[in-house]
């Protein structure tokens, strides 16, 4: 992922170079920063999209190299030290004199980077281990009772009165009574109808005026029951013709 450099005295990734410079294994004087920058820009141009993380990492590494180099080149680092002391108000110990301060920072950062990787491994391994979520019913304070005396009896009575008052204000409830039909009643009804009519009653006439499905079914069942009991007689003169019902005369 890192940019691969090809310089006169060094060939490899940038962070390795910084590492070597920090450890003073490579002489910064022999490294051309402009070459590094040129190669890095070429590398960035070759990437499908700009990775801010990587770009900023480069800026940081390059700045570090530049700083180390500048300190190496300058004959009197005393002025720099003073400036830095002014900038770093929070720095308690004066350890950041010359390039060493930056060098230790970088070394420290590399160390934490490595530790972060170790933590990442742990995070991944431990991510496969699950624990029980807190059961809601058992969480603290879930069923905590009110402190005694928080509610007076009179307040309770008042609350009840409010409820009762609200009830009275409500519109009167209208009751819709359910039509009560029984098989026996309907059988009697059919018999009465047949008795009042001297002529046989047609099937259609018997069912006309029935509005509910329930009554329709009960009437039909009553009809079947009367046939079974041989109380009525059903006749049909022709196929698909009208059906007539009359009392059976015994």
């Amino acid at each position, binding site marked *: 992922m890192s940019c691969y450099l090809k310089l006169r005295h060094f060939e490899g990734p940038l*962070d*390795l170079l910084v*590492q070597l410079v920090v450890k003073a294994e490579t002489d910064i004087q022999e490294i051309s920063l402009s070459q590094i920058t040129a190669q890095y820009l070429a590398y960035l141009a070759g990437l499908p999209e700009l990775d801010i*993380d990587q770009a*900023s990492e480069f800026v*940081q590494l390059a700045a570090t190299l530049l700083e180390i180099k500048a300190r190496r080149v300058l004959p009197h680092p005393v002025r720099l030290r003073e400036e830095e002391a002014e900038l770093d*108000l*929070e720095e*308690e110990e004066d350890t950041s004199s010359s390039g060493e301060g930056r060098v230790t*920072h970088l070394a*420290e*950062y*590399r*160390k*934490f*980077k*490595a*530790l*972060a990787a*170790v*933590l*990442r491994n*742990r*995070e*991944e*391994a*431990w*991510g*496969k*281990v*699950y*624990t*029980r*979520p*807190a*059961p809601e019913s*058992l969480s603290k304070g879930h069923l905590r009772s009110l402190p005694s005396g928080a509610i007076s009896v009179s307040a309770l009575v008042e609350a009840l009165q409010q409820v009762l008052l609200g009830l009275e204000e409500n519109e009167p409830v209208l009751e819709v009574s359910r039509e009560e039909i029984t098989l026996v009643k309907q059988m009697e009804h059919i018999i009465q109808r047949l008795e009042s009519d001297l002529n046989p009653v047609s099937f259609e006439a018997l069912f006309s005026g029935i509005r509910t499905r329930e009554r329709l079914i009960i009437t039909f069942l009553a009809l079947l029951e009367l046939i079974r009991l041989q109380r009525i007689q059903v006749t049909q003169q022709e196929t698909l013709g009208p059906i007539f019902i009359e009392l059976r005369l015994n």
Partner: protein
Amino acid sequence: MSVLFSQEGRAAIEALLFVASEPLSIPTLSKVTHLGEEVVQELLEELQVIYAGEGRGIQLVQVAQGYQLCTRPEYHIYVEKLLQPVNSKLSRAALECLAIIAYQQPITRAEIEKIRGVKADRVLATLLERQLIHTTGRKETIGRPILYSTTPEFLRLFGLNSLADLPHQTNELNIG
């Protein structure tokens, strides 16, 4: 009310571990069961042996200064299939910042930024929000900056019992 028999005590501890959603410390278990801390420790170890036996899907682990029942990593696919947890891994920046805090706590924002070389505001906000770090006072220096430390939640996330269990800081770590 005290639990007299060790088997009963062990069962009681198991029950407590089952209902608890966070690690239970030995002092807590001791307080609830009225058993001595040494006894609790022994019973916990017995339970660990039981759960370490073959054919178990759960284990009793020592984490964040306590004990907690949790699933075995071998069966994570099944757990994930059932519950479909949302995976929210920490970003690289957040992890680096967390590593610095973990090893250097308590630490100020400026000190973190000095090591990382970039601003840490957003990363710190994320870590605070996830309750992996918390503020633990102020440094007695110019400006009295806020100090940050890791939380027990941090230990839980990484399955650590205490900060002493953090991987050692060595320079031999493979840097690349």
